[in-house]
């Protein structure tokens, strides 16, 4: 396993947000977490990337324990996190946003190559590279956020609600991009409100309910699961 969460507990003040979450992520494909608003999906991602301290439990990434590392050290290990709400830097240009993603990298030529790579993936960003990021549309901002994460040359990509607030046609585009990234060998942990979408693209899925994993299994199996159908797929 590339990433493993063992019995993770997280508290905000005194209130428990995660009550023993265990998750495994293999080194290829998409693992998804679905669940209602506030079930603890985003908190799980924040715990992995070191933004939220864990109260107990262990997180292992490629044979190394990372749950005590601060966020900037977790990135250095190769985990890129596209946070909920995209969180691009509004008053940086598109290109500057992308370049902050490569903050830790020292090989100049490689970075320039990857920048062209990202522009190849998102031609619309290339046209707007000198524009302030805040002037971009929601879908373009999502592309900036994903592109920024790719600039760190990650070994694992965490995506938090990439479909949020986007029109169906844009979501389609984002999904294609995610699939292309996975195909090129970067595994993805996808957190989604839109369970139908998530279960369609992922190979393995976890259902989170009030801070615990209530169900886990192959995405196709969960798609046919009665509880999941009733609670999350609206069937």
């Amino acid at each position, binding site marked *: 396993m590339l990433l493993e969460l063992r019995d993770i507990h997280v508290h905000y003040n005194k209130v428990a947000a995660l009550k023993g979450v265990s998750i495994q992520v293999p080194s290829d494909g998409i693992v998804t977490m679905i669940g209602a608003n506030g079930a603890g999906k985003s908190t799980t991602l924040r715990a992995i990337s070191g933004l939220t301290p864990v109260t107990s439990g262990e997180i292992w990434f490629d044979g190394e324990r990372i749950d005590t590392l601060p966020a900037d050290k977790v990135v250095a290990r190769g985990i890129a996190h596209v946070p909920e709400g995209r969180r691009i*830097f509004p008053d940086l240009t598109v290109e500057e946003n992308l*370049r902050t993603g490569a*903050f830790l990298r020292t090989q100049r030529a490689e970075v320039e190559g990857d920048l062209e790579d990202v522009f190849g993936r998102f031609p619309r960003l290339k046209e707007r590279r000198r524009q302030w990021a805040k002037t971009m549309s929601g879908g373009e901002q999502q592309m900036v956020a994903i592109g920024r994460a790719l600039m760190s040359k990650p070994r694992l990509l965490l995506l938090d609600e990439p479909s949020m607030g986007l029109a169906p046609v844009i979501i389609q585009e984002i999904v294609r991009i995610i699939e292309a990234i996975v195909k090129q060998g970067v595994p993805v942990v996808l957190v989604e409100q839109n369970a139908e979408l998530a279960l369609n693209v992922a190979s393995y899925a976890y259902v989170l309910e009030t801070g615990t994993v209530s169900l886990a299994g192959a995405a196709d199996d969960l798609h046919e699961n009665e509880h999941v159908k009733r609670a999350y797929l609206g069937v």
Partner: protein
Amino acid sequence: MTELILQTVVNAVYAASYMSLIAVGLVLIFGVMGVINFAHGELYMAGAYTVVALYSQVGVPFFVTVVAGLIFVGLLGLLMEQSFFKPLRDNPLGGLIASIGFLLILQTSAVLGFGVRMAHIRPPTQAKFELIEGVVLTHQRLFVIIAAIVLLSLLHLFLRKTKFGWAMRACAQDREAAALQGISLSQISRIAMFIGAGLAGVAGALTAPLVSPTPYMGHSVIVTAFIIIIVGGIGQLEGAVVAAVLYAFVHTFVTTFYDGVVADITGLLLMLLVLVIKPTGLFGTKERA
């Protein structure tokens, strides 16, 4: 009359220069670290006393002492960051209050080291340009203007063209997202604190021969700086420069043609007006704090 107006313009440009240096430093610290450095006026004072100590008393060449002022005050900034801003990172009010404590320490240190009386410093040069008949610009003031232009341009280039510059702006806009790019807030804070404090130190060192330092000179400086950063839109570097120019002209003209106290009141009312109309400052766009 024309000469008087032109002379006042020259004076205002000079005032705008050192005020920008101070205010930009304060804005940089606030932007990156989210804390108001109440001791910023005392950092300016520390820069001035570096000149008193090294140039007046020991005889080190003036421009060497200016560089020494930058480094010494920059290090004071680092000391502040490490000793209380960093431990109080999640407590902006605590950081502000600790900086008030530091203000008292710096002020008392100056009193103990140099006495409460004004320190008169012989300017390194008495030379001056007569721009036109009756309008004078001393070299000493010209140094301040040039230093402000050069240093602020360098800062601008640093922020726009270098990796650490982008990182610093990224931290100012969204600390958490910046951390997710591998940017260490502690490292960036140290850089911001060094630069921010250093700029105040340079301003203090360069103006020392023109203002006769006292241990209490920081008070009016911090008031001025607050006015500028509020009018300029808190966290906005360009706004701070524009506001410094605006404020310097208003203040200098009111002082020259009316009265110094009235000029101070005008400045404060300007700031209150901005706060009432637009609590994020005239040039500000983002909701902060």
